[in-house]
């Protein structure tokens, strides 16, 4: 490509000044960027309203796309189901027979549990569902792990509410717009969830690694051994997540800190449930004169 002769200003003062001003503006853009970066580092929710305004435009587009893709993808699946329906029926009947005994035992345990709770006078807060919605898109090109939820303030979603799927915890709501909300996924590097081992109640935290997995770290002392197959649920410490939501199951053992995948995998997730924060923050004390 030949050199750009058009950029030569010649003797025209007007051209000289306009080129000079455009260079000044370019450098000013970089400086404004640096200032914005400092502001958003020290006050992350500063520009939430702007972000959510843009997201409320993109979210309906994403969900329409998802619906279209889902519709096309379900055609071969439907055909497959039609052919294998006999075998599947037999299999399901088998499973039902096997599960029946388990259900009976679980029912007995529930009843017994209720009796014991009344004996101990433990007041359990039930986690109520705020809204059930779809995760429509995510930040695929950035290292942060956010997802966009297709429900917002109009549906009662507020920042801080936990988001879960049927098989486990997904994350929590970070910012809300009128009809969309931004969810901080468990695997984000700034996500930290207090958990405990189901086997013995060993306290730990699930800290996001940024690569779609979490680090399960022991918090009580050192030299804690994790076994493969250890199962972790939220402990309820901190008051954000209700206790007992499944979080992770270890594939490999280790000492003190083990990387593992989460039980709810957001990439194959269909529908997420937003729940009320387990113990909301107490109101700020009134200022004394």
């Amino acid at each position: 490509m030949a050199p750009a002769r058009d950029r030569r200003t010649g003797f025209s003062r007007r051209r000289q000044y306009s080129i000079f001003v455009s260079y000044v503006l370019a450098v000013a853009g970089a400086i404004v960027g640096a200032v914005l970066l400092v502001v958003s580092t020290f006050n992350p929710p500063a520009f939430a309203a702007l972000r959510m305004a843009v997201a409320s435009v993109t979210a309906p587009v994403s969900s329409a796309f998802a619906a279209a893709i889902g519709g096309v993808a379900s055609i071969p699946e439907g055909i497959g189901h039609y052919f294998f329906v006999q075998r599947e029926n037999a299999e399901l009947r088998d499973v039902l027979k096997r599960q029946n005994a388990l259900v009976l035992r679980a029912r007995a345990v529930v009843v017994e549990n209720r009796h014991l709770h009344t004996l101990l006078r433990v007041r359990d807060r039930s986690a109520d569902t705020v809204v059930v919605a779809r995760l429509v898109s995510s930040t695929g090109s950035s290292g942060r792990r956010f997802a966009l939820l297709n429900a917002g303030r109009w549906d009662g979603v507020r920042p801080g509410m936990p988001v879960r799927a049927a098989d486990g915890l997904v994350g929590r709501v970070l910012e809300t717009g009128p009809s969309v909300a931004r969810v901080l996924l468990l695997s984000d590097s700034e996500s930290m969830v207090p958990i405990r081992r189901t086997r013995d109640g060993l306290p730990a935290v699930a800290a996001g690694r940024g690569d779609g997995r979490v680090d399960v770290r022991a918090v009580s002392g050192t030299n804690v051994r994790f076994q493969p197959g250890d199962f972790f649920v939220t402990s309820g410490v901190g008051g954000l997540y209700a206790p007992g939501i499944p979080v992770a199951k270890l594939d490999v053992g280790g000492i003190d800190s083990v990387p593992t995948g989460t039980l709810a995998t957001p990439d194959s997730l269909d529908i997420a449930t937003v729940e009320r924060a387990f113990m909301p923050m107490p109101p700020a004390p009134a200022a004394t004169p």
Partner: protein
Amino acid sequence: MKRQVPVHSIGYKPFEKSLAPSRARAIPWVSVMIGSCLTAIPVIATVPLLPPAGLLMLLSWRLLARFSLRHWAAGPLGFFDDLVSGQPLGSAVLLWSFSFILIEMIEARLVFRDFWQDWLIAGGAIALCLILGRFLALPIGTHVDGVLWAQIVITAMLFPLTARLVAWIDRKRGDQ
């Protein structure tokens, strides 16, 4: 400047209406913003592998049609990208402006360029933006470095494709 189409060629259309100047100037901006909005595809990604299409479009416009965007265009376009990308607000404003200034400096020195040099410059700018963006957005200890290299390679490999796209759009809108 009006592009000279030979009279005896198939592209010669003397009575075709050219695009209104305001619309022709808006097209590069709109195409970069559409690239930024590519994060709206309905996939919940667990690893950051999606190439930053907004940045790719911006670099293609800058390197292939250098008068299509003003010198200061990277700032506002980066601001929009930050709103949809999930990076902390201001990181793309800073990095995109910075890469524009860098390209300007390279252009002043390396005046005769071929597509290969353009590709190299774009690759450098992509690597710079992604690596610095990673350190601006994430703590040092985050395990995304392997994925980051993969993302840089994917993005750099996509540059010829976006260059083709930009060249096509540029031909359609006509030189102003």
